[in-house]
């Protein structure tokens, strides 16, 4: 194999890897917002699951229990704590 051909193949491989990593980076960064969106969507479809919207005559535990908000919080925590470092590592590896 000539040096030129080998270099061309090497560049092609690097470009493919880079494209794949970029797609995966976007996917990792989108996981958190997608989860937040799911939580917001759920609260719109089933607003009665959020007792904070109708807080009168609710006990303490019912006011603490806001399942759609839990989903939103998990998405935010994942996006802020896990995703940035993971995306940076993925970019560095590619």
């Amino acid at each position, binding site marked *: 194999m000539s040096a030129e051909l080998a270099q061309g193949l090497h560049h092609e491989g690097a470009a493919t890897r880079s494209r794949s990593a970029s797609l*995966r980076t976007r*996917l*990792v960064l989108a*996981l*958190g917002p997608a*989860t937040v969106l799911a939580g917001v969507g759920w609260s719109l479809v089933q607003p*009665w*699951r959020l007792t904070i919207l109708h807080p009168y005559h609710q006990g303490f*535990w019912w006011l*603490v*229990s806001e*399942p759609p908000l*839990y*989903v939103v*919080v*998990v*998405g935010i*925590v*994942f996006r802020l704590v*896990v*995703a940035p*470092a*993971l995306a940076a*590592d*993925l970019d*560095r*590896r590619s």
Partner: protein
Amino acid sequence: MPHAEMVHWWFGAGILMVALLSLSEAVVGPDVWAMRPWRRYLWPGLAFLMGVLMWPVMTFYTNSTIHMVAHGSWAQTMMLAGASELGLASGKLRSQWWRLCTVLMMLVSGGAFIVHEQQHWLFSRAAFLHHAMGWTLIAGAVFPLLRARRPQSTFAVAGFASVLLVLTVMLFCDRDTAAVFGHISQSAGVPHR
């Protein structure tokens, strides 16, 4: 005391986080995932913590002996699975067969879901979901088993994450007494929420 379904929702939030961590591990691959040591400890640590938190559930939600046995065995195997995965993450455990502890955890958890629900599938939503979650976990145990054989398998990690996502949805759907598919037993109690 919080209602039983609230506890399901809290654990649902924890399992959702484990599912997101596993899903992102499947996306980036095990090598990139392991580049930062703290990240390797995330989901095993969370699994261990949920095992610890299962003890108060066992203590305060002991409706019957079978409830106590189910929640107690659940707590033990969740802690065992979390601890073995922590050992693998730190490098103190080297054999990938330690992942069989996660298989055991899923089988015991599935069994616990099924045996501590004394009612039939369509008695109420909680009864239906307990059966569904139990069988989902038992069937889903194939993914950690696959990972014990092939630690680098993306399919195994993604499958595990998918099982946890399905489990999360079912946990969040759980209500103490509510109809399922428009049906609820007359002896189930007053439907709420």
